[in-house]
């Protein structure tokens, strides 16, 4: 039969192992009005015991793609549903000029493998918890994934020139005569680990599928900060200094493709800040720098929201195992 011939030409594996079941849904012949042949040929050779191979032609990987957009289908129902259309007599219709085939697989592959890939994460960061100063920053992260769920990486944030002080300090000073010491950041550099405990996929209007995951991130790094002189700005002037900082956060990553994703992350950068002293020393002591800061540093946490892109490199990757 022509269908068998096509199946052989297309290499649809008619030789199967013991108990393998090859199902060939190759296109039916034209003269028969679109009949479809199903070949359940079983052979026996190298013994892949128990495997069930279902071959729906050698078309692209559209249907079986790990994107998962088709994986939830009822295969038997589909086959049954397709039957009347295939058996439609239509003897006078012209020959088909082209066709497309799809493959489905019993187990879907992970949509975007991370293992041994590098992740670049440019983002913008905004403060969430400081009503006095919004510590906005541009950030760039670099992660190396040594498993599909675990990565080590660094991220760098540049704050200087992007921060915004709100009116609150001005209004508070004016109405209560209280100056609240605030800080300015220059940059932060952090080493961190990322772990992905949660992943899944979303359907939009039953039409599009988005893979996504949620991760936790944490690590240690440095921040270069300084107090902003608000109590005695005429005299005091502070230089940036290095602080040791810890960070912990959670994030959500939505894949647009196998190498590109958008992400949102809430991350708390915690460190000990040296704040400006609220008291002004009298006399010459006013000009002594050791009187400008408070006696003990204050625990400071800057909760930031990161919004940005994730770019996985290399763009292409290969699965270790066949489908």
């Amino acid at each position, binding site marked *: 039969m022509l269908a068998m011939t096509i199946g052989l030409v297309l290499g649809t594996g008619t030789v199967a192992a013991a108990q393998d079941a090859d199902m060939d*849904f190759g*296109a039916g012949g034209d003269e028969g009005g*679109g009949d479809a042949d199903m070949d359940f040929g079983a052979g026996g050779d190298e013994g892949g015991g128990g495997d069930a191979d279902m071959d*729906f032609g050698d*078309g*692209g*990987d*559209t*249907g079986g793609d790990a*994107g998962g*957009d*088709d994986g*939830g*289908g*009822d*295969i038997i129902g*589909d*086959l049954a549903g*397709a039957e009347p259309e295939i058996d*439609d007599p*239509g003897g006078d*219709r*012209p020959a*088909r*000029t*082209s*066709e*497309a*085939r*799809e*493959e*489905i697989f019993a187990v879907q592959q992970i949509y975007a493998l991370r293992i041994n890939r590098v992740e670049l994460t440019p983002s913008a960061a905004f403060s*969430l*918890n*400081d*009503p006095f100063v919004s510590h906005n920053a541009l950030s760039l992260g670099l992660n190396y994934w040594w498993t599909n769920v675990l990565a080590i990486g660094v991220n760098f944030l540049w704050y200087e020139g992007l921060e915004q002080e709100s009116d609150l300090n001005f*209004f*508070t000073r*004016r*109405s*209560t*005569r*209280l100056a*609240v010491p605030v800080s300015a950041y220059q940059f932060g550099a952090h080493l961190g680990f990322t772990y992905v*405990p*949660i*992943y*899944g*996929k*979303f*359907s*939009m*209007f*039953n*039409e*599009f*599928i*988005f893979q*996504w995951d949620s991760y936790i991130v944490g690590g240690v790094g440095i921040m270069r900060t300084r107090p902003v002189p608000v109590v005695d700005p005429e005299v005091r002037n502070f230089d940036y200094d290095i602080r040791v900082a810890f960070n912990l956060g959670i994030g959500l990553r939505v894949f647009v493709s196998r190498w590109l994703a958008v992400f949102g992350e809430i991350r708390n950068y915690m460190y000990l800040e040296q704040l400006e002293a*609220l008291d002004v020393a009298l006399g010459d002591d006013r000009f002594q720098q050791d009187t400008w800061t408070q006696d003990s540093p204050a625990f400071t946490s800057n909760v930031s929201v990161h919004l940005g892109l994730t770019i996985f490199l290399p763009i292409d990757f290969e699965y270790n195992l066949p489908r």
Partner: protein
Amino acid sequence: MMSKITQSVLVAALAASVAWVVPTSSVSAQDIQITGPLAGAPAVRRLRQHRVGRVQLVVPTVGFTLQDEFSRSMIVGLGAHVHFTDFLGVGIWGGAANFANAFQINTDLTSQVMVNGQTTDRNRLSMPSNEGFDDQVGRLLGLASAHLIFAPLRGKLALFQGAFVDTDFWILAGFAAAFVEERADVGDGSVCAGTTSSAACLATQSGADARQVRFAPAPMIGVGLNLYFNEFLGLSLQWRAFPFDMNSAGTDESGRDANGNPGAGFPDGVIDSQDQRFYFNHMMNIGLIINLPPEMEVSD
């Protein structure tokens, strides 16, 4: 991978080409036949529809306001949503802040003002005494909202590769009614004139009539993630924003100069609505979902 859109466009283009080349009388839909069991299939089959035709109660919701300047609010509330489709519905939500102000949560800034704030002749109306500052700060009493809820994304997630829960992501937009308790208007600031705070001046801060409740209409927007443990119960994580004007410090902030420009004439010696500033109030909520009826629909 050829997406359904690409596939549709390709099929349409091929069909158009065939229609142009082949005489009309011989055109047939069978010219292009996409074979395979997934041809024309929807992205998801047997979709577990947690929303359509059901009432979704969120009882209770517990949340905290964020980026508060002078007072924090813990809001306990309840909500209900009715869904016409699996992605569109309407809902109401309401919550009481600090159990209708049965208790107060001051920020560190308020505590600092109470300890270190200084009252002078210049700011006596704004703050008759630093110790009583927490009596004059504005506080949220409660919120109520009516909104449209739109859930464009639904799916499932795997937790530690072991537990699987249905999930949907939603956004809402609507109107909110915020009930705020603020320092009452002080029409005559001269009660706070002088070198010390008189009893009348202190009464504007801590007296029996020193507070007033105001209704503040506001838009409300929000996003959330619902996790469904089974057909009946779930967990809702929400972020809501409800921006409106308020005088959170209870201070005299406004003033106009001779030309009527704001700010330059500070202080104007009056505490009123002109002293309100814009606040982007927002909060995080977590809630328990109860879906009724307990059984949900499953799509084809």
